[in-house]
């Protein structure tokens, strides 16, 4: 192949357009650092504004990038509808998270958090639009490090600092293990692009033992990001410890990037019928089942809402894995599930935060009798909970239905009992999930409060966002094809 410098330069120049949104983010990152340093004192929200502007621009470029697909930077950067939509979701949710942060933590000047947020977003973009292990690792690390800092950033008390520490240590260990696995894979294939024929060839020739080792090590890293069993153990603690805004961030955005990466990986690897393909198939089935079970079962006993939500998101990870498993060339329902998941989680965390503002507690017990005091909020919250369970007419139901549909079609063609078990477990766990999701309305509406809680009537930006999200939950539940048509048009 031609490796002359000018040619490479040309190629890089040529592939810059594909990189515009990220470039914007990078610039914004730097800008934010400076604003945080210099303007923060004079004008409090300067960094926030800068961050918003950045995101807006990046969003603009993203939309403008919409139709065209392609690869750049000698195949390291790959832009296809999946990545585009994933990044779209990421940017949008980051916007909400930014507002969330601004609303919640605008007391002392902590503008740096926005730059970190942008860094995380950048990492996510990288994750969701590459098929190269190097890029993937960089992305994962960017996201991880950024989230470590975010978790630790506001740590005023023991709990938060502990959460941050656990997060960083657990994360780094997983990263290290994954890196080791990657090194092995690299050694076996001599190629870092997991979609390339050479890579697959290498895997085919490789001895089983090594392959097993390498693959499982790699899955450790991804498992940490997706927090599926057995790498979920960190998430309840961290979710509970971290500030609610950050928890909202953790529970949604990193997963998007990771799941997209995993989807690509899984698709390319299972396209063949070799040991490593079967291995990953079995791996994903088993993990999906266990994750759904453990996530929902463990949530039953939780008394802290954020902890409960942590487990619930673990459970949802199981379903995401199911979606990935049934992942075929048209991944619209995967995106659909991602969107649904993000919307539901963001909404519920905003609600949790609002209630925390009122009662100063995230314990379920403190919700007793609040239903009468904040009827609107709790009605919306209940609807979101219903959607999380997956009961019509909500987006959660449609998403779940589509995952089941695709999985079933897979089952029908393969007749694999494991798949059926996965389906049944998926169905049954939604019954179990009813138990704990409905603790929220149970305490809010059915129980009567003993101590009077003074509820300040204030209508905040966040609540408006949350209500809009709730409306979306219902709307997409009844007319999913509005979202779906949008997602699937560009694939044809």
């Amino acid at each position, binding site marked *: 192949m031609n490796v002359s410098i000018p040619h490479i330069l040309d190629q890089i120049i040529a592939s810059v357009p594909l990189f515009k949104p990220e470039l914007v983010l990078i610039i914004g990152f730097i800008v934010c650092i400076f604003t945080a340093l210099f303007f923060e004192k004079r004008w409090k929200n300067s960094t926030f504004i800068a961050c918003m502007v950045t995101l807006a621009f990046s969003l603009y470029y993203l939309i403008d990038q919409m139709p065209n697909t392609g690869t750049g930077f000698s195949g390291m950067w790959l832009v296809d509808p999946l990545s585009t939509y994933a990044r779209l979701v990421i940017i949008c949710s980051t916007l909400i998270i930014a507002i969330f942060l601004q609303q919640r933590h605008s007391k002392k000047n902590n503008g740096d958090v926005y730059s970190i947020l942008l860094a995380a977003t950048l990492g996510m973009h990288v994750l969701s639009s590459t098929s190269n292990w190097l890029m993937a690792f960089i992305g994962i690390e960017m996201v991880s490090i950024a989230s470590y800092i975010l978790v630790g950033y506001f740590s005023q008390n023991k709990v938060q600092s502990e959460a941050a520490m656990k997060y960083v240590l657990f994360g780094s260990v997983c990263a290290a293990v994954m890196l080791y696995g990657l090194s092995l894979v690299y050694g076996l294939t001599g190629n870092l692009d997991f979609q390339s024929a050479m890579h697959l060839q290498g895997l085919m020739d490789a001895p089983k033992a090594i392959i097993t080792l390498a693959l499982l090590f790699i899955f450790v890293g991804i498992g940490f990001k997706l927090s599926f069993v057995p790498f979920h153990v960190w998430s309840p603690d961290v979710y509970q410890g971290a500030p609610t805004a950050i928890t909202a961030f953790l529970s949604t955005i990193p997963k998007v990037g990771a799941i997209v990466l995993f989807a690509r990986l899984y698709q390319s690897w299972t396209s063949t019928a070799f040991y490593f393909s079967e291995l990953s198939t079995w791996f994903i089935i088993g993990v999906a089942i266990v994750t759904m079970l453990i996530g929902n079962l463990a949530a039953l006993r939780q008394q802290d809402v954020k902890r409960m939500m942590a487990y619930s998101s673990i459970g949802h990870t199981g379903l995401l894995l199911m979606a990935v498993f049934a992942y*075929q*060339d*048209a991944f*619209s*329902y995967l995106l659909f599930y991602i969107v649904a998941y993000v919307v539901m989680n963001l909404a519920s965390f905003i609600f949790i935060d609002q209630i925390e503002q009122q009662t100063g507690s995230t314990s379920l017990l403190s919700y007793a009798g609040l239903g*009468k005091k904040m*009827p609107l909020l709790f009605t919306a919250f209940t609807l979101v909970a*219903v959607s999380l369970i997956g*009961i*019509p*007419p909500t987006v959660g*139901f449609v998403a779940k*239905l*589509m995952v*089941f*549909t*695709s999985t*079933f*079609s897979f*089952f*029908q063609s393969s*007749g694999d*009992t494991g798949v*059926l078990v996965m*389906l*049944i477990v998926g*169905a*049954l766990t*939604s*019954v179990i999930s*009813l*138990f704990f999701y*409905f603790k929220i*309305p*149970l305490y809010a*509406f*059915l*129980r009567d409060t003993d101590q009077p809680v003074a509820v300040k009537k204030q209508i905040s930006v966040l609540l408006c966002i949350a209500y809009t999200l709730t409306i979306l939950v219902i709307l997409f539940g009844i*007319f*999913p*094809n509005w979202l*779906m*048509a949008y997602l*699937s048009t560009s*694939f*044809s």
Partner: protein
Amino acid sequence: MGLLSILIFLPLVATLLILAIPSSAKATYKYIALCFTLLQFGISLYLYGNFDAKLGGIEQMDAYQYVEQLAWIRMDLGTVGKLEIDYFIGIDGISLPLIVLSTLVMLMSVGASWNIDKSPKGYFALLMILNMAVMGVFSALDFFLFYVFYEVMLLPLYFLIGIWGGARREYAAIKFFIYTLLGSVLMLLVIVGLYFSVINPATGAHTFNMLHMMNPANYVDGSFFAHITNYHEVFGIPARLIGFIVLFFAFAIKVPIVPLHTWLPDAHVEAPTPVSIILAGVLLKVGGYGIIRVCYSIFPDIAANTNWWLALIGVISIVYGALNALAQKDLKRMIAYSSVSHMGFVLLGIASLTAEGLAGAMFQMVSHGFLSAALFFLVGVLYDRVHDRYIYNFRGLASLMPKYTAYVAIAFFASLGLPGFSAFIGEAFVIIGAFNAESMSTGIPRWMAVGGSIGILLSAAYFLWTLQRMFFGQTRLQGGQAWQEALTDLNTREQVVLFPTVALALLLGIMPSLVFGNLNASVIQLIDLIKPYL
């Protein structure tokens, strides 16, 4: 926007209206609810009036009436194929009586909830949403739509029981919810399976259209639920059988059958009177309706082979429920168990696969619909007065509240199958159908029919015993003088609610053709659908 859609979505308008009106004017809520339910009742009567009784329905698309079909969801899932979901509603002889019944029962329940003072806004809003869902379930012909309405029913009920219910309401509410959800999530899997097995002959896409599912020609060969040449097995059980079982399980929970009935007594006892009325009057019917509309119509082959077991379950439910009712000391619980027993007849009749049995089962559903509603209302009357339902705390009420006693006696005798009242026709024809099954060789032995008729005897036993214990003899009350004053006789509102049901029971008992006339064609149609597999 056809008449049927209006019927379905009127309550939604009512809900929005109620939510819009500030809580300061809470008095208006019940009137709004009343107006809308009355309107619905009128519409349903209009539907009834203009219904063409000759058309069969079941699996013939063109035999449905008031049909509306709009493309609702069209999604391209790539290799999975196109998702084709219609807003497809229509009624035939099976659904018409139940729709009329539901509107009536809703009217009753609104009447029963006249003096709800605990946050009436939420109460009536939920009630109306429930109302909408019920109407939807009975008229949906697209499985997806059906499922959506089916699930939407649960939420309002959860809150209605949970917030306005009795002492153990939380337990009852969640139990009810879990039971039903358990049934329905498994149903969802089967729905998905059916979706993949059936294609719409017109468009060639997979479809949720129930009527397409009823036609063997539309099944893809080798698909999971394929009619012929189906080798799929789940844990060694043929796929179609397992599909039938799962669906039956889902609906049997609602019916409910023994041993899936335990949610019912709790739910009934804890629920406020209007909700018990709806539960007994409408929700149980959803089960029976589902079995006819879904299990039997989509899986006729399995239905023909399994009806022995269904009949057995029916008989067991009849006797078991009756015996339980006999043992109860709480009046409401007794009536709850009597519902189990009476719904057992429905199952037996359906399983008999004879015209008499099926028609009898439908009739039994209708009559049990408003009779049990009346019974629960009567219990509510007593409970409103003295907040007690314990049978042994009352004695000789007859001399204290003659009007009330008269209504109770009529309701009791009507539901223990005294000829001249509707329940008799239902039960008698279920029994006759079960006897007939042997001559029709649908494989229901006659001892089952005899077993079912024992249920009639037992029902007489517990109703009369209750009558004797609570109403006859010298007046002696637990609450003494205080109750003496509290136990005033029926007021006008209560009589206005009760009288129509009693009158209706009598009317249908004397002129069963009012119901039989409309559902006969559909029943024959269903029999013809199943006969080839016998």
